[in-house]
C-alpha cells in the first residue's frame, strides 16, 4: 500500500475513534449542566438542600462525562497534528483558510472548555453555587463553539467558498472570511451535528438509567417506572425515572432536529456536491422523478440489481424538495466533470456511500423509536385501574414489567450505540463521498499527502495509534461500566469550606 492509502486509513481510524467521544462530550456536558441547573433552582426559597435527586444525577453523570472527556481530549490532539504530519501538501495549500478556524477553535473553545471544566471538577466546595454552575455551562458552550469552528473548516473542504487559488504560490487564499463562516454547508451541518450529539447524550442518559431500573427490578419485582395516578414512584426509582424522562425527551426531540436539518442538508448537498447525492442512491443515470431505495440486493454498479425496495418520488424530494424533479446520475456528472477538470474518475466508492447513507438514517431512526418507547414506558397513568387493558399486544412488549430480562439489558446497551454509530456512518459517508477530492474542485486527495513521509513511517504511526486506541478502549469501557454500576453518589449539597476535601477529583 502506498502512503496515500495508509494516510487515509490512519485518518479514518483516528477520526472515527475520536468521534466516539465527541458527541458524548458535547451532549452530556449540556445535560449535566441542565441537571445541575434544575437542582439549583430547587434550592430557591431557603431550601439549602433542594431536590437532591438532581444533584445526585449531576454528580453521577458528571463522573461518566469526565471519563469520556479525558479520552476525547487525548485523541483530539492527534487530529490537529496529523494535518501537518500526514497531509503537509494539503496544509500548505489550505493553511491560509483552514488554519484560521482551527486556531480560533483553540482560542475561543478549547481554552474555555478545559479551564472551566477544571474549575467545575475541583470547585464544588470552593465556588459559590451559581458561579460553580456557570463553570459547567461555560465548558458546555466551549464544546459547542469547537463544533462550530471545526465544522466551518470541514464545510470549506466540501464547498470551498470565500477563497481563490493563487497558482503562483500553489495555494488557496482567503478573500472573504464571512463567506467561510456562513458557508451554506456549515450553516446546515452545525445544527445537524449538534442535534446528533444530543441524540447520543439523551440515549446514553436514558439507557444508563434504564439499566439501573432493571437492576432494581431484579431485586424487587414490584418496582415500576410507571407513575400511577398521584402516587409517586418508589424513592429508589425516582431519580432514574427522571433521567429516563429527560434522556428520552432529548433523544426524540434531537432526533427530529437531525431529520429536519438533514433534509435541508440533502438539498444543499445536491446543490454543491451532486455527485455525493447520486452516490448516496447509486443512481447511475438521471431520473425524473427519482425514487429512493430502502435497500438493494445485488451489486450497485447499475448492472446486477437482484432485488430492491423503492419508494417512488422520494429521492427527488430529498434532493430538491420537489417530487418530480430531475436528479443527476453518476455517469452524467462524471462526463460533466471530465469536461471541467480533465480526464479522471470523479465518483466516490459507490457501495460505501450507498450503505453508510442508509445505515446513518436507519440506526438514527431506530434509536428515536427506542426513545419513544422509553418515554411511553415511564409515562404517568392517570387511571391505574385501567392499566390491565392497556397492556395488550405491542403494549405488552413495552410494559415496564418486562424490564428484567436479558433482552432488556441488550436493548439498553444498544440504545446509545445506535445514534453513536449513526454519527460515524454520517461522517464516513460525507468524507468518502467527497472523494476523489480533498478540497472539492480544488485539490485531489492524492495530491494532499506529505511527500517526505514514507509509507513505512505511516504504517508505524498507524499501528501505534491503533494499538494504543485499542488498549484505551478496553480501559475506558471497563471504567465506564464500573462507574455506571456503582449507582448514584451521596446527596451532600456542596458548601464553601476552605479546607473541605477536593473530593470530586483525584
Amino acid at each position, binding site marked *: 500500500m502506498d502512503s496515500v492509502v495508509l494516510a487515509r486509513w490512519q485518518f479514518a481510524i483516528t477520526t472515527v475513534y475520536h468521534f466516539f467521544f465527541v458527541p458524548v462530550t458535547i451532549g452530556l456536558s449540556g445535560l449535566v449542566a441542565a441537571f445541575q441547573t434544575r437542582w439549583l433552582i430547587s434550592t430557591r426559597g431557603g431550601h439549602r438542600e433542594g431536590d437532591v435527586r438532581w444533584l445526585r444525577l449531576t454528580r453521577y453523570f458528571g463522573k461518566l462525562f469526565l471519563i469520556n472527556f479525558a479520552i476525547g481530549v*487525548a485523541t483530539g490532539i492527534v487530529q490537529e497534528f496529523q494535518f501537518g504530519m500526514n497531509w503537509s501538501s494539503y496544509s*500548505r495549500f489550505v493553511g491560509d483558510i483552514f*488554519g484560521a478556524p482551527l486556531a480560533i477553535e483553540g482560542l475561543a473553545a478549547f481554552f474555555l472548555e478545559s*479551564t472551566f471544566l477544571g474549575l467545575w471538577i475541583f470547585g464544588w466546595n470552593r465556588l459559590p453555587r451559581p458561579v460553580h454552575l456557570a463553570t459547567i455551562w461555560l465548558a458546555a458552550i466551549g464544546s459547542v463553539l469547537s463544533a462550530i469552528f471545526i465544522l466551518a473548516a470541514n464545510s470549506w473542504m466540501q464547498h470551498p467558498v470565500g477563497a481563490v487559488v493563487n497558482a503562483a504560490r500553489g495555494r488557496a487564499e482567503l478573500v472573504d472570511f464571512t463567506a467561510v463562516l456562513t458557508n451554506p454547508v456549515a450553516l446546515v451541518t452545525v445544527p445537524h451535528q449538534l442535534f446528533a450529539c444530543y441524540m447520543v447524550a439523551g440515549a446514553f442518559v436514558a439507557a444508563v438509567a434504564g439499566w439501573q431500573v432493571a437492576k432494581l427490578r431484579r431485586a424487587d419485582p414490584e418496582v415500576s417506572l410507571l407513575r400511577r395516578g398521584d402516587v409517586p414512584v418508589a424513592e429508589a426509582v425516582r431519580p432514574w425515572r427522571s433521567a429516563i424522562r429527560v434522556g428520552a425527551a432529548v433523544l426524540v426531540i434531537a432526533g427530529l432536529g437531525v431529520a429536519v436539518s438533514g433534509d435541508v442538508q440533502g438539498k444543499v448537498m445536491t446543490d454543491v456536491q451532486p455527485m455525493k447525492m447520486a452516490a448516496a442512491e447509486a443512481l447511475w443515470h438521471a431520473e425524473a422523478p427519482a425514487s429512493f431505495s430502502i435497500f438493494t440486493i445485488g451489486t450497485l454498479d447499475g448492472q446486477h440489481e437482484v432485488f430492491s425496495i423503492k419508494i417512488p418520488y422520494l429521492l427527488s424530494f430529498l434532493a430538491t424538495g420537489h417530487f418530480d424533479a430531475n436528479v443527476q446520475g453518476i455517469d452524467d456528472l462524471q462526463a460533466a466533470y471530465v469536461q471541467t477538470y480533465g480526464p479522471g474518475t470523479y465518483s466516490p466508492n459507490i457501495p460505501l456511500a450507498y450503505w453508510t447513507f442508509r445505515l446513518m438514517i436507519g440506526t438514527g431512526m431506530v434509536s428515536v423509536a427506542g426513545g419513544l418507547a422509553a418515554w411511553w414506558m415511564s409515562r404517568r397513568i392517570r387511571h391505574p385501574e385501567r392499566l390491565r387493558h392497556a397492556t395488550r399486544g405491542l403494549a405488552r412488549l413495552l410494559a415496564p414489567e418486562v424490564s428484567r430480562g436479558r433482552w432488556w439489558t441488550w436493548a439498553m446497551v444498544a440504545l446509545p450505540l445506535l445514534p453513536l454509530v449513526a454519527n460515524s456512518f454520517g461522517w464516513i459517508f460525507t468524507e468518502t463521498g467527497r472523494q476523489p477530492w480533498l478540497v472539492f474542485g480544488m485539490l485531489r486527495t492524492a495530491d494532499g499527502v506529505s511527500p*517526505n513521509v514514507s509509507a513505512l513511517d505511516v504504517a508505524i504511526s498507524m499501528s501505534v495509534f491503533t494499538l494504543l486506541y485499542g488498549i484505551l478502549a478496553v480501559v475506558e469501557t471497563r471504567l465506564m461500566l*464500573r462507574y455506571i454500576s456503582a449507582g448514584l453518589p451521596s446527596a451532600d449539597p456542596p458548601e464553601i469550606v476552605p479546607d473541605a476535601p477536593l*473530593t470530586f477529583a483525584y
Partner: protein
Amino acid sequence: MIIPMITSAEALPVVWFVLIAVLWTGYLVLDGFDFGVGMLLRPVGRDDQGRRIVLHAIGPVWDGNEVWLIVAGGATFAAFPEWYASLFSGAYLALLVILVALIVRVCALEYRGKHDDPGWIRRWDWAITISSLVPPLVWGVALADFVHGLPMDSAHNVIGGLPVLFSPYSVLGGVALVLLCLTHGAAFLALRTSDEVRERARRIGLAIGLPAAAALGGFVFWTALHGGHARVVALVIAAVATLGVLGGWVATRTHHDGWAFVGTAIGVAGFVACVFSSIFPAVLPSTLDPAGTLTISNAAATPHTLTIMTVVAAIMTPIILLYQGWTYWVFRRRLSTRQLAASAHEPGPARS
C-alpha cells in the same frame, strides 16, 4: 536617516512570529511545571497520600495548560502554513512519540484515582512519570532544531527522517528542558503544598537547581551564538534566563517559594525566547538548500488572514489570561492531607 515605512503586510508576520513565541512560552511555562510535577510524582509524593496531594496541585489546571500547545499548533497552521507543514511532516516520528506521551498522560492523570487497586495505581503512576518526561525531552530537541535548522529541499520538505533531528546541540536542548521542567515543577510543588511533601519538593529543587542552571546556561548561550539579526537580544535573554534559575535556587534556599517559582518560570520563558530571538527572521532554516529556508515572509499566510487572526487574538487573549489567572486564584490555598477525601478511588455513595 530614513525610517523604513512598515506596512501592515510586513508587520503582521512579525506580530504573529512574536505571538507564536508567546504561545510556546505560555505552553512550556505552564505545562512545564505539570511535566515537572509528573516526573516528581513518585519521589516527592512517596506514599499514596503524598502522591494524591501532588496530583491535586496540578489537577484543576493541567488540562487548560495543555491547550496552549493546541493553540500554538493552530496558530502556526493559520499564520505560517509552510512552517507548520514542514515542521510537522519533517519531525514525523518525533511528534508521534510526543502524541503517544500526551495521550497516555491525559488518561493516566484522569484514570489513576478512579479505581482502588494497588496495581492499577502503580501502573498509572509510572505512566504519569514517563509520559511527563518524554514531551519536554522531545520538545527541547525540536526547539533546538528550530535554531539549528533541518535539511530541507527547495520545496521546503525535510529530507532524512528521524536521525536529522539529533545533534549534540539538540540533545543538550532536550536535556536542559527536562532539567528545567523538573526544577520548575519542584518549585511549583513547594509553593502549592505543605508539610512533608513541600519539604521533599524543596530538597529536590535544591539538588536539581544548579545542574538545571548549568544545562540551561550552556544551551542558551550556544543558541545565542547562532543568532542572526538579534544576537544581542538573544545574549541578554540567555543571561536573564540563567540568572533566573540561579535566583530561583537561592530563593528556594532562603524559603522564598514564590520567588523560586518566578525564577524557574523566567528560566523556561528565557529558553523559548532565546530560541525565537535567535532564529528571527527565519522560522526554520534549511541546512541543505538555502532556498529551502523558511522565513516569516515566505512561510506566512496572506495579510488578509493575518489581519483577521490578529483581531481575534487581540480580543480573545486578554479574556483567556483573565479566566486562567482566576483559576489559579481560586485554588491558591496550599494543599495538605486535610483536603483529601477519605478515599478517592471507590466510585459510589461513599463520595461526598
